[in-house]
């Protein structure tokens, strides 16, 4: 646990927690303001319940979209500097000369980053859902499942970023993970467009990229569970929220994401154990 403690202290002292906390508080205040104003406007017509449900759902899902975006970048930035800078600076050599295995060090370090990113996204998601519930009485389809999927998304990114940081410099690892994250985002849009346009080729490309990096697929799965039942009941695929899912995630997707994170972790450990320091 010594490395976990040290890593947490590092995050605290590098202002990651402070800056993250301040930005998040500002974001939540903004979300509360926007949500209140938007919902009040929709509520001016008390007879149109579907319009209110649509307004609350769209604002909540887009708010959480921003949250997962922030959390994803936090995960990438933390993980991509997990290993290489420690070796290059010489900080790691003094630590690993102690009775501490490389696997234990890596597990504690990457585990702390994954835990921080997951804790962040869970706390922020609950805060956003709490605001929506307090202002509009908003209830999502399955908030618990959504939060688990979002946490899995950041764990996937931390695993990938950590593995790459064993082989690449922090900047290179960060660039690669962000590029893959962006590719997944575009693939998600292509899959949605393929769905709307009934174009199987577009959908297949989207699925293929989701296999390469399932971050966006996990978000879309989570975003389905974040919508209100009333909104989903009356909304067709074509009228859905951009960037959000219109179906519950498949079990194979979730299993693939878990295997993907585990696979990158195993690869990170293998690379790290074999690497000359």
């Amino acid at each position: 646990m010594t490395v976990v403690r040290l890593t947490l202290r590092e995050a605290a002292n590098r202002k990651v927690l402070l800056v993250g906390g301040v930005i998040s508080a500002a974001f939540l205040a903004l979300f509360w303001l926007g949500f209140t104003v938007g919902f009040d406007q929709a509520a001016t017509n008390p007879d149109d319940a579907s319009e209110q449900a649509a307004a609350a759902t769209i604002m909540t899902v887009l708010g959480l979209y921003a949250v997962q975006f922030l959390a994803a970048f936090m995960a990438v930035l933390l993980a991509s500097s997990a290993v290489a800078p420690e070796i290059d600076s010489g900080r790691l050599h003094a630590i690993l000369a102690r009775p501490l295995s490389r696997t234990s060090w890596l597990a504690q370090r990457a585990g702390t980053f994954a835990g921080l990113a997951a804790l962040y996204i869970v706390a922020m998601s609950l805060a956003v859902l709490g605001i929506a519930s307090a202002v509009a009485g908003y209830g999502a389809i399955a908030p618990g499942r959504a939060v688990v999927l979002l946490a899995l998304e950041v764990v996937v990114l931390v695993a990938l970023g950590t593995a790459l940081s064993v082989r690449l410099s922090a900047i290179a690892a960060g660039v690669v993970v962000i590029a893959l994250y962006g590719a997944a985002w575009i693939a998600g849009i292509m899959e949605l467009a393929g769905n709307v346009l009934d174009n199987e080729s577009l959908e297949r490309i989207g699925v293929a990229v989701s296999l390469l990096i399932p971050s966006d697929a996990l978000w879309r799965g989570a975003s389905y569970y974040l919508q209100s039942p009333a909104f989903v009941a009356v909304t067709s695929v074509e009228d859905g929220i951009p960037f959000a899912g219109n179906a519950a995630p498949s079990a194979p997707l979730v299993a693939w994401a878990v295997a993907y994170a585990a696979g990158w972790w195993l690869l990170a450990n293998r690379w790290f154990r074999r690497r000359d320091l």
Partner: protein
Amino acid sequence: MTVTEEPVAPSRAGTAPISATGLRKAYRDRTVLDGVDLHVGPGQVVGLLGPNGAGKTTAVKALLGMVHLDAGTATVLGRPVGDTAARRALGYLPEQFQYPGWLDGRQVLEVHARLIGLPAAERPGAVTDALRLVGLAGRGDDRVAGYSKGMQQRLGLATAVLGRPALVILDEPTSALDPIGRREVRDLIHALQGRGTAVLLNSHLLGEVEQVCDHVVILDRGRVVHSGSLAELAAGAEVRVTLDRIDADAVAVLQGFGRIAAQDTDTALVALDDVSAVPALAAALVSRGHGIRALVPLQRSLEDVFVDLVGTTGEGEGR
């Protein structure tokens, strides 16, 4: 820097702190270690010398399991390289050192005290002891970010001696220190030796090694070019012989022991084939009736020996 005489951390009795044979390491087509043998006995201070790029740091990292060897066997404190348990009684100062700037000196040492498994009750005392030992007693509560390079190196030395290890490996321990700091490190090594700690000192500073080591291993381009005591190394391979008269018979006797490098009527400078043959040379001269006025084995400086052995710098030939 002062050290009290207290027992070091327990190690297996009679086990060599370092025993390495035939260490070999190559990066692509470049051989960095080429059959290196290295032994450090209990309580012994061994200097690992060599020009930049000779493979010294790679050898040290290999012993710590940080560099994977292509061939060779090595044990550290009686356990195979890479065995984490052996590192409980081992202190290490890396050549390239940096400590988390957001911690203070005391906190850095507390992290290391936890990692070596010191009981909580013993940690504060061990940390204070280590800080005092390296001359950082008054700066332990300052953040490392505010430390000079020399202070960071002292902190590194403090982590290396924390918990009274049985073996301390110091990789260029005075690179960032001023002359006073260097002298203090020499005193520290003497003190470690005094309390029975084995030390492997990796350095390219001959004076440093000369003053603290009782055994040296000289590496050049990944090979051991000399391994032995300093006395052996510095002992004259030349002897100055002053006789009543250097005649043809005396020359014949002297040439039986080596090459005559210089000669006048009564004195000759002989480069011996065998350094230990001085008594035999004396006996041979006496038995042939030559009066010996002086027979002086010439001391050579470590620098002379080093330059002879290593020749030109090995920079770029190894790592």
